[in-house]
């Protein structure tokens, strides 16, 4: 399996066989999570609704992991200047945005079913929403440049800026919510969980991690292929219509 080539000759896409293990791994992870979260006994208080946690919590953890990878890979790109790091950063950001969106959506379903409201302004939710838009902006930035190197540099700098900003955002939002009375609603993590639930939760997180790694493998491969296409299109010497026109010169001789 290749996550992405580093320097030197790119592997010929005509000859490398597409690796299928990531798809199988994702499928297995999905099935295992599904079975585990429906086999585990329901929570005493929240009954069947507790099962929502087994997708909500792993999605949140993996989203934060994905963004951490983006931050790290951005710094690595600025240091090593290798395009592989750029692809890793971008792929992780895309998957991170997807998982954050999922966390928010499932979180809203959880909130509506257990507390009766789609949204509350507690620190964690607000932070997650802000992170979502920070990395959505990162993706929008990448779409705005076609030049591979410029795109990589700009995204990496934004990725590193996020590293600097996120702790500030984190603390300011938590402090802001601390100044007001926080709503006395049960938060998922503070639910009293018995051993079976904890095990299932950890299993779900492990499966989501498997899914993330598999997804990353394929997404970075896609990034490598698309970068090759961009490079090829850039460097192609296509004849242009203007070549047929010869500039007139003084004296009549061309």
């Amino acid at each position, binding site marked *: 399996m290749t996550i992405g080539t580093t320097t030197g000759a790119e592997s010929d896409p005509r000859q490398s066989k597409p690796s299928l293990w990531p798809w199988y791994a*994702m499928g297995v992870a999905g099935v295992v999570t599904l079975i585990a979260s429906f086999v585990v006994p329901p929570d005493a208080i929240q009954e069947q*609704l507790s*099962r929502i946690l087994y*997708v909500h919590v792993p999605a949140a953890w993996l989203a934060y992991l994905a963004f951490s990878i983006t931050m790290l890979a951005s710094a690595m790109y600025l240091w090593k200047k290798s395009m592989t790091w750029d692809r890793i950063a971008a792929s992780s950001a895309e998957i991170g945005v997807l998982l954050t969106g999922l966390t928010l959506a499932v979180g809203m379903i959880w909130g*509506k079913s257990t507390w009766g409201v789609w949204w509350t302004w507690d620190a964690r939710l607000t932070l997650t929403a802000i992170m979502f838009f920070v990395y959505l902006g990162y993706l929008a930035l990448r779409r705005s440049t076609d030049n591979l190197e410029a795109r990589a540099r700009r995204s990496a700098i934004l990725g590193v800026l996020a590293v600097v900003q996120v702790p500030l955002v984190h603390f300011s939002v938590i402090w802001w919510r601390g100044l007001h009375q926080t709503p006395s609603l049960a938060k998922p993590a503070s639910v009293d969980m018995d051993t079976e639930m904890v095990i299932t939760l950890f299993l779900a997180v492990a499966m989501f991690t498997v*899914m993330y790694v598999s997804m990353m493998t394929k997404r970075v491969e896609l990034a490598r292929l698309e970068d090759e296409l961009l490079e*090829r299109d850039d460097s192609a010497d296509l004849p242009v219509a203007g070549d047929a026109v010869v500039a007139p010169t003084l004296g009549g001789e061309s």
Partner: protein
Amino acid sequence: MIFAQMPVAEQWNWVGLAYGVTYITLVVYAASVASRISKARRNLRGES
């Protein structure tokens, strides 16, 4: 607490919604990555 009063059938609806949203999103995303990969490979093969 609201959920203590919710009938089990309705609870399953919410659980189904949560899992449906999760799995459909992930499957659709994986499928889009897969199709873009094969499209890119075809483009590269076809012209280079």
